[in-house]
């Protein structure tokens, strides 16, 4: 879901780009953050709490809260809410604290 009309802002459709979420092809727009592209594609659960494994979604959206930590191109704990989506990115749901390789 995306906002198409806004009383003040002029919203222009931008170029569509593809990425992979858990191996599956998805699409976002140029200028999206990873989390925004996922959200727009209906992916609302971005991580799980470490101890009780409760679902965590788009929360602070400014890179502070750690709710959107995901593994991107093999790098764990990427703050997907402030990381720009690039064509071909491999975004993976991350269980636990992430693995550093």
């Amino acid at each position: 879901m995306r906002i198409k009309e806004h009383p003040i802002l002029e919203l222009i459709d931008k170029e569509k780009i593809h990425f992979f979420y858990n191996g599956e092809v998805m699409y976002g727009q140029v200028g999206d953050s990873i989390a925004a592209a996922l959200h727009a594609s209906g992916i609302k659960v971005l991580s799980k709490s470490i101890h009780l494994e409760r679902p965590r979604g788009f929360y602070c959206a400014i890179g502070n809260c750690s709710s959107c930590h995901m593994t991107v191109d093999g790098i764990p704990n990427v703050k997907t809410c402030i990381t720009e989506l690039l064509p071909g990115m491999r975004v993976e749901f991350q269980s636990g604290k992430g693995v550093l390789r």
Partner: protein
Amino acid sequence: MTSSIVIIGAGISGTSIAYNLAKRGAKDIVVLDSGYLTNGATGRCGAGVRQQWGTEANCVMAKKSIEFFEIAKEELQYSGDIEFKQEGYLILATTKQEELQFAKNVRLQHKIGIPSKVVTKEEALQIVPHLNPNAFLSATFCKTDGHLNPFKMTDAYYQAAKRLGVQFFFYESVQSIDQVELGKFVVHTNKNSYTCHQVVNAAGGYSKEIGDMVGIDIPVYSENHEILVTEPIEKMQGPMVMSFSKNIYCQQVPHGSFLMGRSNPLAPRDHDISSSHQFLDEMAKTVCEILPLVGELRVIRQWGGSYNMSPDRQPIICESDIVKGFFMACGFSGHGFMFAPMTGILLSEIMLGHPTTLDVSILDIKRFHLQTTTDVEHSVV
């Protein structure tokens, strides 16, 4: 208020001394702290416990303390988890001179029964695969060294001491100590006065000031040592990695964070415990050289705490030879947490006139008055 013993300082040393005194039958024990439980050096320490030392006194204190940590949960009947993890300390030798010194240290450690060993670079890389192979020559490893949670361990002593009747008073800062007669003291705080027969100085960074209050000059000073901690990550490093020549210790705590520190050779002798950008900069450079992968992690926060330094980097655990009834456990030089079980055992034995578990003459303040040279500990970061 009248008590028999007043202990100044509710860190790991003060709580261990209180517990050990009460366990041996001492009554009317009061512990005072100017802040909260662990608010001094204990709660700011690097949470490592090791036996790989370069002097006999430090080796013996450390070994017997580790033996206690192994049974601490049961002995203290603690309901929580003290997070004792024995996955070793890997100490890197980066110079030929260090390799020689470490070989000597390991011989000393073996004499005392500490299971340390010299390991080659290849063996070290098997123990910690993400080490930079070009940053060191060889290493020593002791698998029974490890990690322990300072807050939980102090709480375990605190709870056990309270069950044995020890009274704790927090946010009470000692202002002065009067000796009203031989073996009788009045300890004045900002809130109360305590009459007692024995006073224990376990004030960590402020132990010199407490000594001054009874007119004795304890040859210790405090200096700031800083630490930083990263975001947590799944477990990737078992042992503490340490280097004296590179000036670093770095371990992954059970929570998953990496905790690391180094000393500032230019640190002034004072009570500063602030955080500096210089430390962050130097620490980051050092860890990226030795453990490059750790450099990928974000720093979460920094803090500082006081090392209470003694002239030979070994603790002072004794009764004052000048003021009878005044006892001290200070000058741990950054290692009071890992020695605390023995600190409590030895000082309680000294105070109650019991035979001591170890020969404590090497820990006596009198060693600094003698002209003979004592061992000096060099294995300090």
